[in-house]
């Protein structure tokens, strides 16, 4: 157990750089059923959608680049023809990257070392139809206990039926964490989901899957307007994007523009309304402060015995000797809990 904890700690402390995805422009000429683009680090971009003969379309697609910043030359798209014989009229051309995220190594060390939030999909149950089938097969087998062929056949048929009965879609498991760094005033927005994670079309950032399977891909769906998503059956998928604060916001906690994220120091909450906040002082003592409204100072600690503890994963692998705020946000999409972690400005003068 100690070895596992140590291994996890070492893994978190030396996290590999994330895979950066950049926005490219892709020109398509039909007829074709889709396009596949081999990106870096085992990621594939797949454009899913049909184009008829003579139909053309230009769209933006995400492509993971092996190098950061991405090379000027874009990878070659592979056409998925509509029939077995590729139509000579079909074509696809990928332009060099329009937008690319900044260099991962250029992010503050404190942000790069944060552990990704865990995503644990609770195992699905068999469901009522399958359990009813099990019970029915058992009754039949016991009723015909002395007729071996009937009992065996009932078991075989019921066993095979277990694989073909319809199933309910699995519950969605997703989480969002705002990782803040007081020294640089930069935020990293980390979103995670199992099997499928929507991306903002036209964005750029970093992505990661756990485990790093070859089945992972970036998918662009043409139907209903281009939709971007990370896809990987059974994988925990993460998308990371950076939010930076302007210097004056850091210094004066001035009003923020829409979409900007403010600081979360004890003197003032410039982020958003928070449903529950925990604060750790430099000596390592955690206190619970209850809800914290935006624009106000940190409420007094709730010293009651019923004060909840912060989630273990949220307070692990954080730097020692500095003040830290962790919080559960009152915002966030339905079914996607949103958390925030803010490490105060350190005394080491770390600033990037």
């Amino acid at each position, binding site marked *: 157990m100690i070895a596992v904890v140590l291994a996890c700690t070492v893994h978190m402390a030396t996290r590999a750089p994330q895979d950066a995805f950049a926005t490219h422009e892709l020109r398509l000429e039909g007829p074709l059923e889709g396009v596949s683009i081999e990106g870096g680090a085992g990621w594939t971009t797949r454009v899913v959608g049909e184009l008829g003969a003579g139909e053309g379309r230009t769209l933006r697609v995400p492509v993971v680049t092996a190098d950061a910043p991405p090379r000027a030359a874009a990878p070659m798209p592979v056409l998925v023809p509509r029939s077995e014989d590729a139509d000579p009229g079909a074509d696809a051309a990928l332009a060099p990257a329009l937008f690319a995220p900044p260099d991962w190594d250029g992010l503050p060390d404190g942000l790069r070392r944060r552990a990704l939030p865990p995503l644990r999909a*609770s*195992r*699905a*149950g*068999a469901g009522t139809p*399958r*359990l009813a*089938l*099990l019970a029915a*097969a*058992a009754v039949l*087998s*016991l009723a015909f*206990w002395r007729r*071996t062929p009937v*009992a*065996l*056949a*009932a*078991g*075989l048929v*019921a*066993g*095979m039926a*277990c*694989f073909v009965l319809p*199933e309910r879609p*699995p519950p969605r498991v997703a989480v969002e964490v705002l990782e803040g760094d007081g020294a640089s005033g930069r935020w990293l927005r980390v979103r995670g989901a199992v099997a499928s994670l929507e991306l903002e079309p036209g964005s750029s950032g970093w992505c990661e899957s756990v485990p790093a399977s070859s089945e992972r891909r970036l998918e662009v769906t043409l139907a209903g307007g281009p939709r971007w998503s990370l896809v990987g*059956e*059974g994988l925990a998928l993460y998308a990371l994007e950076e939010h930076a604060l302007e210097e004056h916001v850091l210094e004066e906690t001035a009003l923020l523009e829409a979409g900007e994220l403010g600081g979360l120091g004890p003197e003032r909450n410039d982020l958003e309304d928070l449903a529950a906040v925990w604060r750790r002082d430099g000596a390592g003592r955690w206190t619970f402060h209850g809800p914290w409204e935006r624009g106000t100072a940190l409420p007094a600690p709730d010293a009651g015995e019923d004060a909840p503890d912060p989630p273990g994963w949220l307070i692990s692998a954080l730097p020692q000797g500095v003040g830290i705020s962790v919080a559960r946000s009152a915002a966030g999409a339905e079914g996607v809990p949103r958390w925030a972690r803010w490490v105060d400005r350190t005394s080491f003068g770390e600033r990037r």
Partner: protein
Amino acid sequence: MNRAAAVLAWALSAAPCAAWGAARESLGDASRLALATVVWLALVGLPAGRRERRAGTATARAWPRALGLALPPAACAAWLDLRAGHAPQDLWTTAVAGLLLFVVLGEARRMAARAGGDGLYALAWLAIVPGTLGLRAALDWAALGPGEPFAPVVWLAERGPLDWAFARLAPGPEPAPWISVAALAVGLWAAGAIDGRRARAGEELR
């Protein structure tokens, strides 16, 4: 395998499929198919009781019926494992090797009962099926203390069918237990044959 033991095994093997809430969470990512396999392997070779032998039902080939009862929970468990991301080849290994062990244990039990007595078979079953599992538990406790365990004892403990099935609980490749299957088949069939010879010798003396 008599009907009562079959019903008990069915209920125990179907329970992981029916578990919900905290009970389901407590099973973690353990393979439900391996759990079902453990139950059936533990009970399919259970030596026939005196009442069963007196009634004459122990000599019938009961394992195919028990297999009919075992297949639906096992298939449901395999389906759940597949949905949870277990590798299909791992599940195939568990299913095929588990089925082989099931047949060997069931057939050895029937042979011993048909031979007219199952004293030696009962001892062999006790040693090979629950015995090796107990040996493994003892070795695990012993590992907490100083010194190395005796190598042949470790080898024997690792060849038990239940120990193999428990090892399949954790997802990941595990070599199929061909040595266990062969040792089990030879050991239990030999026990059944010796039982039969002793029973015939006893009849001749009478």
